């Protein structure tokens, strides 16, 4: 989260109200109304000329699924290694490098994908709901164990200061707010199409506004627990405050798979607490991969394929498309950069849908459809018409501008790992393909069914 990691948390919480919760309301409402997946919903509500936008939202999330399955596999492998005590006494950086450069990530990518597919093969109620009934409470228990251990370490207060102390000089730092907004956009899953897909299965009279607020607050509650479990522990176990701050800037994979095992190895019962961390990470990743698999499966179901045929097809495609990320770390980084940022564009497409439909009309005809539903009020219209599109443009411009600074001499390179060029090239390629098949997809999803 960058230099102002602790403080951007406040920006993150503002971001919930200015980005995530309105988009979650939009997704829930669309899924409940259309009873179709992402592409079918865009086709139905926006018409033929805009079906490709739904295609982009789906493409973006599916592209993330291809490499996210690899991350789930890493977490599974590290849990197994930690629980058998093989992580103790190793050089964690070397261990990580040798692991990611070998064939093991491929095997664990397939294992994680197989497990996710097995769960959703049994459908939404018997598969996804049943699995989440085990995964989410277990994740909560594991997080609470982590919080208790972290807060009882010596000097944990230094980490709490870092996490919560007000640094007034950062209040006017635009980067902190943009970092917080980005974190909010990515952590809740708003604008990914996942919530829309789950909403296909909710009751017609389910309160989407209440559920959206629960989703936003629940996500923040879990994020706070994770922060309390990790940040005080890092500040307590790192030799100096500067080293702790540098550990927090190590990036997601560096922090999770190198720094945390390194620091946790200093704890008494290190194997237990490292195992708890990786099991929690695996459960969190698995619950995400399940929702992504369901998103892709739902689209094929909308095309007329039964679940028992759609899911194996999705799993096979994911297994194959995840291979480059599993065996080539630079490719993984590239995909994480391109499609992670693509999610902001996905969020923008959802707001375009609402604007085209008419924000007030969307609120009265799609959101508030029964007497029990809370009316989000006029603020919802203005957020979706003005604030969120401005946020999306700012976020896209800021991240793309930053990427020029990371690679000033080769920012235009379409084959660079994290360049502006690769981002624009891959988005343009995806949109070009989606525009070519736009008419065909629309006919299949809307006209044929009608």
């Amino acid at each position, binding site marked *: 989260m960058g230099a102002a990691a602790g403080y951007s*948390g406040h920006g993150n*919480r503002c971001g919930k109200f200015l980005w995530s919760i309105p988009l979650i309301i939009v997704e829930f409402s669309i899924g409940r109304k259309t009873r179709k997946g992402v592409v079918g919903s865009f086709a139905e509500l926006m018409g033929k000329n805009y079906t490709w936008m739904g295609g982009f939202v789906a493409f973006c999330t599916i592209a993330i699924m291809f490499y996210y399955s690899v991350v789930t596999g890493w977490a599974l492998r590290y849990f197994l290694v930690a629980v058998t005590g093989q992580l103790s006494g190793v050089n964690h950086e070397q261990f990580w490098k040798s692991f990611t450069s070998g064939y093991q990530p491929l095997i664990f990518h397939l294992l994680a994908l197989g497990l996710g597919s097995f769960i959703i093969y049994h459908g939404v109620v018997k598969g996804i709901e049943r699995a989440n009934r085990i995964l989410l409470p277990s994740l909560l228990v594991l997080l609470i164990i982590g919080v208790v251990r972290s807060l009882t370490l010596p000097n944990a*207060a230094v980490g*709490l*200061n870092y*996490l*919560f*102390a*007000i640094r007034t000089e950062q209040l006017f730092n635009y980067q902190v707010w943009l970092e917080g907004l980005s974190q909010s956009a990515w952590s809740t899953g708003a604008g990914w199409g996942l919530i829309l897909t789950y909403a296909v299965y909710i009751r017609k*009279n389910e*309160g989407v506004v*209440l*559920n959206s*607020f*629960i989703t936003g*607050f*629940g996500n*923040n*509650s879990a994020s*706070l627990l994770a922060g309390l479990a990790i940040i005080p522990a890092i500040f307590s176990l790192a030799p100096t405050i500067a080293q702790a701050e540098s550990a927090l800037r190590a990036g997601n994979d560096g922090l999770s798979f190198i720094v945390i095992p390194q620091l946790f190895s200093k704890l008494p019962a290190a194997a237990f607490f490292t195992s708890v961390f990786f099991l929690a990470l695996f459960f969190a990743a698995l619950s995400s991969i399940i929702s992504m698999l369901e998103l892709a499966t739902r689209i094929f179901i909308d095309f007329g394929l039964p679940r028992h045929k759609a899911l194996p097809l999705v799993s096979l495609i994911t297994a194959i498309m995840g291979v480059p990320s599993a065996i080539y770390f630079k490719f993984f980084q590239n995909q994480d950069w391109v499609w992670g940022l693509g999610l902001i564009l996905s969020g923008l497409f959802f707001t375009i849908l609402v604007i085209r439909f008419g924000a007030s009309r969307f609120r009265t005809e799609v959101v508030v459809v029964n007497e*029990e539903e809370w009316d989000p009020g006029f603020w919802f219209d203005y957020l979706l018409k003005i604030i969120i599109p401005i946020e999306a443009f700012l976020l896209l411009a800021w991240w793309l501008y930053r990427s020029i600074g990371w690679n000033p001499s080769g920012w235009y390179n379409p084959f660079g790992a994290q360049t502006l060029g690769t981002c624009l090239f891959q988005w343009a390629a995806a949109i070009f393909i989606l525009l070519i098949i736009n008419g065909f997809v629309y006919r299949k999803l809307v006209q044929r069914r009608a």
Partner: protein
Amino acid sequence: METSAIIVMCFILSVIWGGFFILVNVAYKKEKQRKNREIAG
């Protein structure tokens, strides 16, 4: 721990966790009412 950090921590935790529990409680009550109506009707 700094006093300002303690105040901010208490504020954030009570708003976020408190808000979450209140919303879950509202949802639980609505669900209960719905089930009661279904049984009655």
